[in-house]
């Protein structure tokens, strides 16, 4: 075999493997959608039916309006928590990153080393004391334990933003200072506008993390009216475990905001995952 034949065979193999993998990965999605659109009899048909007949679009509406499971409320709770925590993370982390990248102050390097070190401390260590602390503050069963920490900066986002801010030339700051800008307006008018691409990446991380978060809401929220969408889904699972059509319909609705975000900002998702994996 010559070089060209080898290349051709390898290309063929690549397409074959990638296509097989893609089909395997797509099956669960198709199955989920198909289940969500079936009526209750067809779900329990053997062998399984792939194309529902008839299409029961009403399942989506029904899954959101089950008695005792106010999904509209759950979704809006998730939106409130996700938006507040993301705004908080962006705001606080970019101010802190500015201090770590563009101001020279005593103790900066030692503190930045601590920022990096805290990224290594796993969250399970702090679960119990945090729960007790929030209980003493009377914050449990409110959104505060899920939102307030975000307003005090997140080490990982501080790290990403700092690395990016270091690439912006210091000439900007000097020129702005000569024009009479103070530090605060340098941050807001000069640096932050240039950080928009990295804000996108950080926002996506934060939105994804808070929307999908399960353990923290599970620990801190106890009344049904405060539940997030993920908690609602898990409760749905407990109470209606045989009603797979509605369960799948509800799952799709809970996934939808992230899927739409992905469709709109795919580039930043990919950039984000590459940043985490390559550093």
């Amino acid at each position: 075999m010559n070089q060209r034949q080898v290349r051709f065979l390898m290309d063929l193999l690549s397409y074959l493997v990638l296509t097989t993998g893609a089909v395997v990965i797509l099956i669960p999605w198709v199955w989920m959608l198909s289940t969500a659109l079936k009526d209750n009899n067809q779900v329990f048909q053997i062998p399984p039916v792939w194309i529902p007949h008839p299409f029961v679009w009403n399942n989506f509406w029904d899954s959101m309006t089950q008695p005792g499971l106010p999904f509209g409320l759950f979704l809006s709770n998730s939106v409130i928590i996700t938006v507040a925590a993301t705004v908080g993370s962006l705001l606080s982390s970019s101010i802190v990153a500015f201090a770590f990248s563009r101001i020279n102050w005593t103790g900066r390097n030692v503190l930045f080393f601590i920022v990096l070190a805290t990224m290594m401390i796993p969250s399970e260590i702090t679960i119990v004391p945090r729960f007790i602390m929030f209980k003493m503050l009377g914050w449990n069963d409110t959104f505060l334990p899920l939102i307030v920490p975000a307003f005090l900066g997140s080490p990982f986002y501080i790290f990403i933003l700092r690395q990016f801010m270091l690439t912006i030339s210091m000439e900007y700051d000097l020129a702005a200072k000569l024009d009479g800008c103070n530090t605060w307006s340098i941050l807001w008018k000069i640096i932050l506008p240039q950080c928009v691409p990295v804000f996108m990446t950080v926002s996506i991380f934060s939105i994804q993390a808070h929307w999908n978060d399960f353990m923290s809401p599970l620990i801190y929220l106890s009344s049904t009216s405060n539940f997030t969408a993920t908690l609602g889904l898990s409760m749905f699972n407990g109470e209606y475990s045989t009603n797979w059509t509605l369960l799948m319909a509800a799952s799709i609705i809970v996934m939808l905001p992230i899927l739409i975000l992905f469709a709109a900002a795919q580039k930043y998702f990919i950039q984000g995952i590459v940043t985490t994996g390559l550093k």
Partner: protein
Amino acid sequence: MESIVKNQTVPLTQKKRFSNKRKLKANLVGWLMASPWIIGFLVFTLGPTLGSLEISFTDWNLLSAPNYVGMSNYIKMANDPLIKHSVWVTTYYSVVTVPLHLIIGFLLALFLNRQIKGMTLWRTIYYLPTIISGVAVSLLWKWLFNPDFGVLNDLTGLVFHIGKFDWLGNETLVIPSLILMSLWSVGGSMLIYLAGLQNIPTELYESAQLDGAGGFKQLLYITLPMMTPVLFLNLIMGIISSFQTFTSAFVMTGGGPNHASLFYMLELYFNAFQDFHMGYASAMAWVLFVYILILTLLVFVSGKYWVYYEGGERPA
């Protein structure tokens, strides 16, 4: 800036005072702007970390005042069959899942890196499952694994002509099933490796070709060594995250059947938030932390022998 300062004919003492004042102001502004994180670090990280260590030496149950019980939580753990079992379950899961993700993700990235057509489409399909981790995915897979009406049994029957399995209800099958489910999101690591592959300078391959090295030799002597830092980093992150597995087990099996999927974090959660054994749960958290730390250090030490850093130096 320096020249501006130099050209001024300011007396030395006054200049020094001027720069001292500026230094003071920079310090003030710096600490002030870093203060959100400093406060967050003290209140939400350092405080709770020290608190957790202290609580681990008590019998606190949130109902009565805590008593110091010395090492007894740790001693009790060493003799707790459920804890030992959950360490085994978690280790078993990690030891299989982490290398599988590494190998499959890397192979897929190699195939995808061959100037394949439709890159965006492949990337989207493979990456999609990773963005919606958590409860919704667990529910979907619980339904796929359903012994009577789930589609997995139908497909295995169709392809391999084998009987129906109770994937999640069988003590031997439950962990392999959860591993299978985790492979659905292998696209995440695939993308990282793909980015790594694209970072390898093409000159390396060109000169290897001139020296007559074939495709396999190039893979062995260029691609693999150049990728070891990325593989290394993802090995460590994979170990850390797989030891924290919680949501899938909580939603899909609740630790069953017969504790066969009792992951460590699940047992920790039950101890802390169902039985309110705060002292015991804190001790569990520290043991997990030390266990992960030891594993990570072992990987770090092993890295000396297999991780290749360009220029022979570790990046800072």
